[in-house]
């Protein structure tokens, strides 16, 4: 599905507001038909980046190329981009038809053709009968779709979306996520999406650009970010994670051993950047941790006492306090009422070496 034509190229962007660095060293590419999400907490620079690409903010330095053309300081009306705003920014004094016709009129398309085009996109977003209504007469989800239709109607190179589902309630948000994803797949549009919701990013994106503190923290597929986070921040921000301290004991040939704070020896795959004696963190996802039977063994084993068991419907969470203090969680599918385990029971937790991720502190 991902084409090879480059739709967007961002190089070395930097933006400061007064003393505050809002964005720095930002670069990435976006291929035709790709869905890339800028994910990060508020203040991480994702909206600044989007605004620079949209031409609504001018960067201090760096370059933006859209469709092979340099566009760093081009005004936004010349960029051939579409943008869906967080509150949709539908023009309240214009009907749905006039809203969608607006970009076509700006491009001086014939009125007869405009009518067909507007109807075409209204059909695509499955709202064929609302053309004569004013935006405020529509529900939040409908307004969202009209905003999207208004962007799609002129077939821009890229559609930028700034937290477009932020104003919707959970159920509608889930539904719209799938709808947007489906439109993206069917029509092959290139989308750059901004959100602070990691689950939304995982569901929708081909690739995620994780941002933190005005920089790109890590860029990769959702699986990359989940299974191979490169920083503590990335490991912590996406999904649940157990992060524990350790010191590298041996390293080389793509693997390493780490001595944990509780003196357990942990085996892990590792790039050759870790040196013996280096303080590190190691991460293991809760669903990879298993409560071991007394005779069972695993690549990595730590011991602790059971602190709490919480049944959350489909999964059950076991919180285990390690002798050194931290609490780790293990989840497993709920099979039935938990028996034989209670608070204070000594347990052993095991997991495979290749589920361990070594991270620089």
């Amino acid at each position: 599905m991902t084409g090879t034509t480059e739709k967007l190229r961002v190089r070395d962007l930097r933006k400061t507001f007064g003393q505050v660095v809002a964005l720095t060293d930002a670069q990435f590419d976006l291929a035709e038909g790709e869905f890339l999400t800028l994910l990060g907490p508020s203040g991480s620079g994702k909206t600044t980046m989007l605004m620079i690409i949209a031409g609504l903010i001018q960067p201090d330095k760096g370059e933006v190329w859209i469709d092979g053309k340099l566009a760093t300081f081009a005004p936004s009306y010349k960029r051939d981009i579409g943008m869906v705003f967080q509150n949709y920014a539908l023009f309240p004094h214009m009907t749905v038809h006039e809203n969608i016709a607006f970009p076509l009129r700006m491009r001086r398309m014939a009125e007869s053709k405009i009518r067909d085009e507007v109807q075409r996109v209204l059909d695509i977003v499955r709202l064929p009968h609302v053309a004569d209504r004013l935006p405020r007469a529509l529900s939040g989800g409908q307004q969202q779709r009209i905003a999207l239709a208004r962007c799609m109607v002129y077939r821009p190179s890229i559609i930028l979306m700034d937290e477009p589902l932020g104003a919707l309630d959970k159920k509608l948000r889930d539904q719209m996520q799938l709808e947007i994803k489906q439109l993206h797949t069917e029509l092959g549009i290139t989308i750059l999406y901004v959100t602070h919701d990691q689950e939304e990013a995982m569901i929708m994106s081909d690739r995620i650009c994780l941002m933190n503190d005005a920089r790109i923290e890590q860029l990769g597929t959702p699986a990359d970010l989940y299974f191979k986070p490169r920083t503590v921040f990335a490991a912590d921000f996406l999904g649940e994670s157990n992060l524990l301290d350790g010191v590298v004991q041996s390293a080389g040939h793509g693997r390493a051993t780490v001595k944990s704070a509780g003196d357990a020896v942990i085996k892990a795959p590792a790039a050759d950047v870790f040196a013996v004696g280096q303080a590190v963190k190691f991460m293991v996802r809760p669903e990879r941790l298993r409560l071991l039977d007394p005779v069972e063994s695993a690549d990595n084993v730590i011991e602790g006492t059971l602190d709490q068991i919480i049944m959350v419907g489909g999964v059950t969470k076991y919180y285990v306090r390690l002798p050194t203090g931290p609490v780790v969680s293990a989840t497993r599918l709920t099979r039935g009422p938990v028996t034989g385990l209670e608070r204070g029971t000594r347990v052993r937790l095991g997991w495979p070496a290749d589920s361990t991720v070594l991270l620089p502190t």
Partner: protein
Amino acid sequence: MTAAGRRFGAWRAAWPLLPVLIFLGFFFLYPVGQLLWLSVEIKGTGALTAMHYQRLFASTLYVKVLQITLETSAWCTFFSIVGGYPVAYLLATTSERRRNNLMLWILLPFWTSFLVRTFAWIVLLGRNGAINGWLQALGLTDEPLSLIYNFTGVMIGMTHALMPLAILTMVSVMEQIDANLPKAASTLGARGGQAFWRIYFPLSLPGVAAGGLLVFITAIGFFITPALLGGRLQTMIAQVIITQVQDLMNWAFAGAVSVLLLVTALVVFYLYDRALGMSTLAGETPSTQGGGGRNPIARLSAWIGGHLLGAIGRLCDIVSEAYERLVPRPASRPTREWSRGVLAFLVFLIIFFLAAPTFFIVPVSFTTDAFIEWPPKFFSLRWYDTVFVSPLWREAIVRSLLVGVLSASLAMVVGAPAAFVLVRQRIMGKTALLALVLSPLIIPRIIIAVALFYFYARFGALINVRFIGTSLGLVLGHAVLAIPYVVVTVMAVLKNYDERLDQAAGSLGANPVRTLWHVTIPLIRSGLIAAFLFAFITSFDELTIALFVSGGLATTLPKQMWDDALLKVNPTLAAVSTILLVFITGMILAAEYLRRRALGRSSAA
């Protein structure tokens, strides 16, 4: 409980509205109604007559005056809107910090007395004034130009007086426009011209209409500026009313002229309401607009309007495209939006026009000359001496302070409780109540003044209390005018107040009175003080009511200034104006500071 029962229950909770209803009913609605009745009644009989109106329309003089009034007001409205729009636009679209700073330069002239500002124009525009002085010094003219005592003078003075009102009204609507809309238009391919004329401008129209309405209504009741800056041909209807009452004691005829004025105001108001709806006056965007529904005429005009705006937008863009062809803007270099720079420069000029003239009063007050002339001959304090030595001026100052404090206190006691109900209770007819409370702002002041004068004379004789020529009459009259300001200011602060704080206090065991005393009032104290200060200034600056009610005995400062100015505009007035200017500026800065602190504090929780 039934729906009606609930409504009734809500009404019971609305008892704090009673003081304001009784007060305004007694000292505003009844007197105005009585004046209107007077104009159609055969004296003392209760029978109807059209006599006064026949006389009014039989004479070409009055028809002519009405025509002048309407023309002058229309032009003044036009200039106030055209000049005020760029300022309002910049204020609404700039950063909050800059807005707050710029806003002061609008608020200061807004609150500075019309009298002081009119004197300033005499200093500037007079035959021996600053502008003629400069023109001759530069050799541009050989003899002084006639800049005042004609239409030009009246127009400059009135536009200067009323443009702040237009700006403040337009800003309140423009602030509601989503800042993302022009950006969205830009990403959709609209250049600046199209984005402004097709998107921003139509959305700001309710503000333009509301601002225009308020300016027009205020302008048709104006008399200070036409009297001091105009000639015989600029006589406006309010001046006729004053003459009829003060010189001829012809109440019924004055009543008829007032009715004419009021009807004019109401017709304008009615047309406005039909076109845009009243709620836009409170800064809300109208609910009926756009192409859908409505009658064919509205649709047609919307269609024409849309195409017209589109055409203007196209025209702007053709100009900017041509400019770009001459001066290309490459995508590799940062570009500056020159349109924003042009706007900033324009706004600077307009704010200069609004704020600067008043300061010309100051040097003149230190002149050694016996009359106002530019440049003033420095340096003497004799005019300040005159003010402080003269018992007339001293008395006037003391009375103005006293009346200001008392009427502001009265307005607070009556108005603040009403603001609580209007913000917090859901009651039937709230809009009507709000309209009533705000109407002293909207009804031309001269009508209220004449009505009160007549009411005072009759009612005072009835209960044997003197209202005319006493501070009591002034306090009551000024409170009528100050109540709207109090209600609006307190309502604004309360709207930002987090009511859960009161609920929390209640849940912790405080009864409503203790909650009010220990939680609510401390949190909105700054807002209450600001409301008090605004009310005080309203009274302190007030001339119209004082003109009639003071009866030549209990003279206030503005009344004394007016009397003096009618005889001769002299440096004593400059000295008084300077004192007033410093005093009012201090008050405004204090009130604004407190108001902003109140808004910040009550919502931060």
